[in-house]
C-alpha cells in the first residue's frame, strides 16, 4: 500500500473517531468541534470530531456575518499546500478513489466541467445560503448523506429522526447514488465538478508554497501522469492546474523523473 493510501485511511479514521457515539448515540459537541478540518467532512456525522469548514462558512453567511475565521483558515491552508488536503486527508475523496478502482466501463470528463464548482461555491454555498439564511449546500451534500444522513437514521432509537424523513432526505439519497455511479465511471467526479472546498483551495494552487514543477526537457509526453492522476490532470500541460491535488502520484510514476515537487 502506498504512503498516500495509509495517510488517507488514518486521516479518515482520526477525523471520525468519536467512539462513544456508537454506544451512546448523538453527535459529539465537545471542544474539538470548535476547530475545522481542512476538507469536506460532515460535522453531522455521529463520529466526527471536527467541524466542516463549508458548513461553518454557510452558517456565518446565513447569519450575515463576515466569516473571518473560516477565510483565514482557508487562506492559511491554501497558501501552504494548495489543494493537497484534498488528495491526502479527504475521506470522501478517498471513497471516490476506491469507487474508481472498480473494474468497469470508464469515461473522461471534459475540462470545462471543472469550472462548475465555482458556480456551486458562489451560487449554492454563497448567494442561496445568504438569501434563505440556511446552509443549502449541506442540504444537497452527498458526503453529508453518506456519513451523517444514513447512519443517523439507521441508528435512530427514539424514532424522532425517522419521522423527519421526507422529500428532502429522498433527494439527498438520490444525489448520493448518482454521484456514486458517476464516480465509478469518472475519476473523482464530485471533487472535480461540485466540491466548493476544492473550489476555494484551487484558487491558491497557483500561489501555494508547495508546488509541482515539470522539467520540459525531460518530459516525453507519454501522459502517464495524466493516466495515474486521480483528478485526470495533465500536469505536463498546465503545471498550476486548478484540479491538481498534490497527491504526488505523478512524481512517483514519471518514467523520466521529469516531475518534481518543491517548497519555495
Amino acid at each position, binding site marked *: 500500500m502506498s504512503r498516500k493510501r495509509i495517510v488517507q485511511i488514518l486521516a479518515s479514521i482520526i477525523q471520525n473517531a468519536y467512539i462513544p457515539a456508537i454506544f451512546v448515540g448523538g453527535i459529539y459537541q465537545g471542544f474539538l468541534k470548535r476547530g475545522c478540518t481542512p476538507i469536506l467532512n460532515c460535522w453531522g456525522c455521529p463520529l466526527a470530531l471536527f467541524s466542516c469548514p463549508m458548513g461553518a462558512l454557510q452558517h456565518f453567511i446565513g447569519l450575515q456575518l463576515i466569516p473571518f475565521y473560516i477565510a483565514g483558515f482557508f487562506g492559511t491552508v491554501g497558501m501552504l499546500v494548495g489543494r493537497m488536503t484534498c488528495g491526502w486527508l479527504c475521506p470522501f475523496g478517498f471513497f471516490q478513489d476506491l469507487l474508481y478502482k*472498480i*473494474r*468497469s466501463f*470508464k469515461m473522461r470528463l471534459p475540462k470545462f466541467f471543472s469550472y462548475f464548482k465555482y458556480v456551486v461555491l458562489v451560487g449554492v454555498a454563497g448567494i442561496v445560503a445568504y438569501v434563505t439564511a440556511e446552509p443549502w449546500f449541506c442540504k444537497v451534500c452527498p458526503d453529508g448523506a453518506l456519513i451523517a444522513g444514513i447512519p443517523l437514521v439507521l441508528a435512530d432509537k427514539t424514532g424522532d429522526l425517522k419521522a423527519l424523513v421526507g*422529500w428532502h432526505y*429522498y433527494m439527498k439519497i438520490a444525489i448520493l447514488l448518482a454521484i456514486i455511479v458517476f464516480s465509478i465511471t469518472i475519476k473523482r467526479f464530485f471533487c472535480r465538478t461540485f466540491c466548493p472546498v476544492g473550489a476555494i483551495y484551487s484558487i491558491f494552487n497557483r500561489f501555494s508554497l508547495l508546488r509541482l514543477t515539470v522539467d520540459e526537457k525531460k518530459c516525453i509526453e507519454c*501522459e502517464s501522469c495524466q493516466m495515474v492522476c486521480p483528478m485526470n490532470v495533465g500536469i505536463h500541460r498546465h503545471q498550476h492546474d486548478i484540479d491538481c491535488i498534490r497527491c504526488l502520484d505523478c512524481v512517483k*510514476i514519471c518514467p523520466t523523473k521529469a516531475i518534481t515537487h518543491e517548497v519555495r
Partner: protein
Amino acid sequence: MKSGKATLISTFIVGGGQIYAGRFWTGIALAFFFYGSIAFMIIIWTGINQAFWGLLAAWILIWLYNILDAFKGFRYQKPPCEKICPAGIVPWAYINYLALDSEERYPFVPFFDTLGRICLAPCENYCTRRGIDTPVAIRYLRAGVKTMLPEHKHKPKNDKIAVVGAGPCGLSAAYYLAHRGYKVTVYEREEQPGGVLGILIPEFRHPQAVLDQEIDTLKTMGFELKCGVEIGKDISMEKLLEDHDAVFIATGVWKPIKLGIPGEENALDGFDVLKRIRKGELYHLGRVGIIGGGNTAIDIARSLVREGHEVKIYYRRNVEDMPAEYENLEEAQEEGVEIVPLVVPLKIEKNKITLQKTECPEGRKGRVKKVEGSEFEVELDSVVMAIGQYPETDFLKGLVKFDRNGHIMAKDGRTAHPKIFAGGDVVLGSATVAHAVGHGMNTARRIEAHLRHIPTFIAKLLRKTYQPKVKMLPIKQIERIKIPHRAIEERKGDFKEVELWASKDELIKEASRCLSCPLRYHPH
C-alpha cells in the same frame, strides 16, 4: 459472445452479467449499491413524495450503467502508441503476445502486413520507452504477429452499398461492411485493385505479393470487386445512387498540384513516373531533379537510382522537416540520393532549372521566405514534380460540398448528400495508408449506424472495445533491434524488398523491451 449473454443477464439482475464475465467485485459493488439502496429505502420508507422520482431516476441510472458496462466490458487505459495509431491498431497487445510467445492471436486489421512495411509509425515517436532509451520497433515487430479473421459471421442484410475506389480506405470499409452482412460492390478505375499500393509504391518497399495476399484475405468476407469501371464515364453517379442505399467515396488524390511557375509543362508528373516504373517501363531521364519532400519524391528518387540515374531532391525546408518517412529518407541517402534543402524552383527550362535559396523557421509550419538575389541555375536533363496532389471530384459536382482544393467536406464521413459518404485522402488530403485504413473503418461504422438509424453518440457508446489478454513484462535493458537491410550495392541493382525479416528469437527479444505501459503506468 460472452458480452451478449452478460448484457442479457445484467438486464434482469444488476451486477449479474459482470460476475458472469469474470469481474466478481464489480458485480458485487453494483449489486450492493442498487439493491442496498432499495433495501435502505424500504427500511426508512415514509411514502411517495416529489423527490421519489429523483430517486427512481438514480436507480434507472445505475441499471442503465450496469447494462452498458456489461456490454462494453472493462478496458485498460489507452497507452500512447494505441492513442496515436490512425489505423486503430493496439500495438502493445500484439507486442505482448509476441514477447510472451503466447497462443493468443491478434484480431485482423485490414492491411496489417502492409502497415508493417510502409507505415510512418507515429507510435514509435510517442512510445514511452523513447524517453528512457529508444522506442520499441513497433512497426517492424508486425512481421512476427499472427492475426486471426473474425469467426462470427453476421446475418446477411439487404442494404446495398457501393464503394468507389479500391484503395486502402475503400477496401477497409468494404471489408468491414461485408463482414457486417451488407452487399458491397467496390468500383475501381484501374485494372488492378490496391490504389496507391497497387500502382505507385515501388516494389522494394512494398512487394506486389504482399498486396495480393492482403486483398485475398479481405475478399474472404465476400464483397464484389469490379475493376476497370470509372464512375462518371462507365456508370453515372445518378445510377449508382439509384441502385445503392449508400455510396462511399474513397477515390484518393490523383490530380497533381501546379506550382504556377514558368515552364512547368516541361516537368514530368511524379505519379506518372512512379506508375511507369512500377509497370516496368524503363526510363531514360539522365540527370534528374526532383522537387518535393514527401514519400513520393523519395520513392521516385530511390526507383530512379535503381535504374542508374543521378538523382537530386530539391526541398524548400530543412531535411529534418521533410514529411517523408524517416527510414525511407535514410535508406535513400544511403543509396546515393542527394538532397538539397532550402531551395525553391523559379523557372523550368529544357535541360536547365533556375532555383532560389530560401529561409524558413524550424518545424513544418511557418512561412518560407525567398532570399533575394540568390538565384542559381543547375543543368539537368529532366525535372520531376512531386509536390502533392488534389482530388479529382468532378463526377460529384452538384451533389456534395467541396473546399477550394476539391476535397470533399465531410464530418464523421457524412457529406452534404444524405446517401453519399466520403473518407480517406479525398477528405483528409494526402495522408498515410494508416490514416486511410482507420478512416475507412470509422466511416464504415458511420454508414452502418446511418443504415440502421442509430444516432452517432449511441453508436460510439455501443462500440465494443478489444480486450487484450496481457501480462506485465519485466523491464529489460536491451538495445533496440537493428533492422536488417540488404547490402547497399546489392539492393541498388534490383527492385526486391530492401528490408529483411529477423529471426523469431530476435523479434521476441525486441518485443520484450515493451514496458506494457497500461499495466505499469496506467493502473486503476
